[in-house]
C-alpha cells in the first residue's frame, strides 16, 4: 500500500466529512414519506399488472396485445428495478411497518435468488467498485472492459454474444454469476482461468451443488410458473388464446432483462480502475465511487422510477442504502461537494448515449491492443476519432 501524503489525507478527510454530513442529514429525514412511496409504487405496479394481464387475457387484436404487453412490461420493470434492486439494498429496512420490504424478507418478482444477489451486488460490487479482480460486476460473466484483463477468443464475440444472447435472458443468468458458477466455466475454458476475475468471498449453501441447484430452480420456477404456465393456461382454459399470453409474457420477460441490465451496467465507468486500498480511507472511497459511476439525464421523474433511479448512479453508489427516490433531492448537494473538492461529477446526456458509450468500450476491449492497432491501421480515417474517444 502506498501511504497517502498529509495534504491528500487532509483533503480526503474533508471530503469524508462533507459526504458524511450529507448522509446524516438525509438519513435523519427518513420517515412516512418513504413508506408511502414504496407502498404506493407497489400499488401502481399491481394496477399495471391487473390492466395488462386483463388486456392480454380477454382482449383481441393487436392494439390490446400491445397495450397489455406494455402494461405488464411497466409492472415487471417497476418490480425488478425500482422495487427489487433498491429493496434488496436494505433501503427500507428502517421501517418496521413494512416488513415485506425488508431486504431479507423481500421476494423478487424476478428469476434471481435474493441472497446471491445481495452478496454479489451489495457486498462485493458496491464495496470494491472498479477494483481490478475484486469487483465481480466489472467483469460480469466473461466481460472484458479493460486491457489488464487477460484476453481470450470468447472476448472477440462479446458484443454480439451479450446483446443477442445474454441480455434478453440476462435475469435467468444472474444466479450463475452470484452463485460462483461462472468461475467454474472460466476455469475450464479460459487459458488463464479466473485471473483478473473477482473471486467471491462467500459460498452459497456451503457450496453444496445440490442445494445450490435447488435454490436456482426455485428462484426461476416462481417466474416460469407464473408467466409461462399459469397465465397462458388460465387464458386457454377460459376459451382465450394461450399463445397470445405466452408470447406477450416472453417478449416482456426479454425486454425487462434488457432494460434492467442495460440500465445497471451503462451507468458505470469501466475506467479508471480503482486502487485496492480505497476502503482504508473513507474519503478516498467516496471519490472512488464517484469516479466509477456516471449519471444520465432523465426526461422526468417517471423515467427515473422506471430506471430504478439508476440515472442517479453516483448518489446510489455513495449511499447505497438510502431510499432511491431521495437521490434526485440530494443530487444538487452532491454536485456542490464535487465542485468544492474538484471531483468530476459525470453525467451523460441520456440513456441512449450511455448505452452507445458503453458498447463502444465493449467493442474496443473485444480486441487486444495489438489487434486494435492493426484494425486502426486498416481504418485510417477513423483512427483519430477512436483514439480521442473517452473510455467510458
Amino acid at each position: 500500500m502506498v501511504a497517502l501524503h498529509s495534504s491528500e489525507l487532509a483533503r480526503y478527510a474533508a471530503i469524508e466529512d462533507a459526504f458524511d454530513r450529507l448522509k446524516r442529514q438525509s438519513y435523519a429525514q427518513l420517515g412516512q414519506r418513504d413508506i408511502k412511496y414504496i407502498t404506493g409504487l407497489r400499488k401502481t405496479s399491481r394496477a399495471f399488472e391487473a390492466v395488462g394481464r386483463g388486456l392480454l387475457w380477454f382482449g383481441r387484436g393487436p392494439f390490446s396485445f400491445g397495450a397489455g404487453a406494455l402494461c405488464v412490461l411497466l409492472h415487471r420493470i417497476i418490480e425488478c428495478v425500482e422495487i427489487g434492486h433498491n429493496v434488496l439494498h436494505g433501503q427500507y429496512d428502517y421501517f418496521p411497518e413494512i416488513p415485506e420490504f425488508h431486504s431479507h424478507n423481500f421476494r423478487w418478482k424476478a428469476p434471481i435468488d435474493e441472497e446471491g444477489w445481495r452478496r454479489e451486488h451489495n457486498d462485493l460490487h458496491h464495496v470494491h467498485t472498479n477494483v481490478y479482480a475484486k469487483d465481480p460486476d466489472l467483469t460480469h460473466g466473461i466481460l472484458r472492459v479493460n486491457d489488464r484483463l487477460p484476453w481470450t477468443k470468447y472476448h472477440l464475440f462479446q458484443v454480439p454474444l451479450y446483446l443477442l444472447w445474454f441480455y434478453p435472458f440476462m435475469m435467468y443468468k444472474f444466479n450463475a454469476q452470484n452463485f460462483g458458477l461462472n468461475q467454474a466455466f472460466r476455469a475450464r475454458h479460459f487459458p488463464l482461468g479466473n485471473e483478473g476475475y473477482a473471486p467471491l468471498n462467500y459460498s452459497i449453501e456451503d457450496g453444496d451443488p445440490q442445494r445450490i441447484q435447488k435454490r436456482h430452480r426455485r428462484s426461476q420456477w416462481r417466474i416460469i410458473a407464473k408467466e409461462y404456465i399459469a397465465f397462458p393456461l388460465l387464458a386457454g382454459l377460459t376459451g382465450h388464446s394461450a399463445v397470445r399470453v405466452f408470447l406477450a409474457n416472453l417478449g416482456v420477460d426479454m425486454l425487462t432483462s434488457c432494460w434492467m441490465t442495460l440500465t445497471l451496467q451503462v451507468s458505470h465507468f469501466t475506467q479508471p480502475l480503482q486502487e485496492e486500498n480505497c476502503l482504508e480511507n473513507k474519503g478516498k472511497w467516496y471519490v472512488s465511487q464517484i469516479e466509477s459511476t456516471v449519471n444520465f439525464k432523465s426526461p422526468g421523474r417517471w423515467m427515473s422510477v422506471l430506471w430504478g433511479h439508476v440515472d442517479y448512479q453516483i448518489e446510489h453508489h455513495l449511499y447505497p442504502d438510502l431510499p432511491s427516490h431521495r437521490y434526485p433531492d440530494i443530487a444538487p448537494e452532491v454536485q456542490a461537494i464535487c465542485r468544492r473538492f474538484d471531483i468530476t461529477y459525470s453525467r451523460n446526456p441520456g440513456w441512449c448515449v450511455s448505452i452507445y458509450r458503453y458498447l463502444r468500450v465493449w467493442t474496443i476491449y473485444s480486441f487486444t491492443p495489438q489487434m486494435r492497432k492493426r484494425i486502426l491501421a486498416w481504418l485510417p480515417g477513423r483512427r483519430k476519432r477512436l483514439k480521442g474517444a473517452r473510455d467510458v
Partner: protein
Amino acid sequence: MSRPATSKAPPQEFRPSAFQALCHTLVSPLKRWAIQGLGRDRLEYLCSNTMNAVTQRSAPFFWTYELKARVLRRRRENASVMSFELLPNQHWQMPQAGQYIELSFDVDGQIYERAYSISELTDTSFWITVKALPQGKISNALHQRLQVGDIVSLRGPRGRFVYGGQEAITVLCAGSGVTPCFALVQALLQRSPAQRPRIHVYAQFSRPEEAIFVARMQAWKNTGVQLNIAYSQQPEAGSSPVLNGDNFSQLFPELTASSTHGVYLCGPNGFQQGVMRALEAQHFPLRQLWIENFRPPHSEIHSEAQGTLACVDFSPYHRQIQMRAEDRHKTLLELGLEHGLDLEKGCRRGICGSCKLVLHAGEVRGQTLGKVVYLCRAYACSEKVVLGY
C-alpha cells in the same frame, strides 16, 4: 412418537365455545396437513413468494414473517403442571431433543418472554411443560389463558443441551429439570437398539404428587433404561434413595475418573451444585458434563453498562451466542463471524449496509438507525440482544 391418551376430563379452565370448537376441528387438521403434506420448506417458498395484503389477512398463521405456533392440545400433568402441544408454522426449524424455545405471551398488555424446554417432540409439533409457580405471573397466565386454538409467537429452538453421541449416558434431573431430560431420553429411545446408548436416569421430585411423566418413565424400563426415581420429602415413596454426597458412588458407580459416560444434568440450583460436588469428588472429567441452566428471564436482569457480556441471539441463523470476557470489545459482526455464522458482510465500515439486521429486543450502541443495526459498527449493551430481519 407414541403419546399417551390425553387426560379424560378436560382441565377446568378449558371451556371453548361451540363455535371455537368447530373452528378448531376444521382448521387444525388443515394446518397439520399443510405442514405435514407440503413440508415447512415448500410452505416457506410458497408463502414468502405470495405475501400480500390478501394472503396475510386470509391466513395470518402462514403468511407471516414471524415464527408462530398454534396450541393443539393441553394436558394436565399434576396440580400445578400443564403441558401444551404446539404446532409451529413454516419458520420453525426442527429442534434436537433437549433444546428449549422462548415463548412470548401478552399479560395485561405487556409482552413477556419466557424460555421453556421442549418436553416432547413429534414429527410436526412439540410439547412444552409449564409449572405454575405461586408468584409466576406468566406461568399462571399460560395455565389459565392459553387455550387450544390460540396462536403464540416464539423464538427458537435454542440450546446446546443435546445428546453428544456417547456410548453411555447418565441423566440426572430434578423437579422441572425433568422436562428437557425426558425429551432427550424419549428421542434416544426412538432409535434402534443398536444405535442407542446405554441410559441411566435419575429423576428426583419433592413428593409423588409433584412428580411428572413418572408413568411414562417407568415404561422406559422395558427398553433397558436403568431408572431411579426418588422423592426428597417422602423418601420411602420412591424406588430409589435420595441422592446425597454419601451414596453418589453407590448410585452411579459408572461415573469415575476414567468414565466415558456423558452426564446430562438439569434441575434446581441446590441439586445441580450437589451433583457437581459429588462429580468432582469422584474426579469425573467435567468436559463430559452437559448442564441446562434455568436462568431468570433476561428482561428482568438488565444492565446499562457498556461492553456487557450479552447473550446475542441471531434469530435467522438459529444461534444464540453467549459473549465471553474476551468478546467484550468485539463488534456484533466479529462476534457472529467468529462463531461460524455466515453473516452477510461488505465494507465493515458502516457504509454499504450489507450487514444490517433489525433489533428485536435488547440494546446496542454504535451505528444504528431506528431499529436497524449496522453489525460491523455496533456492540451489545444489554444482557440479551435479539437480532432478526
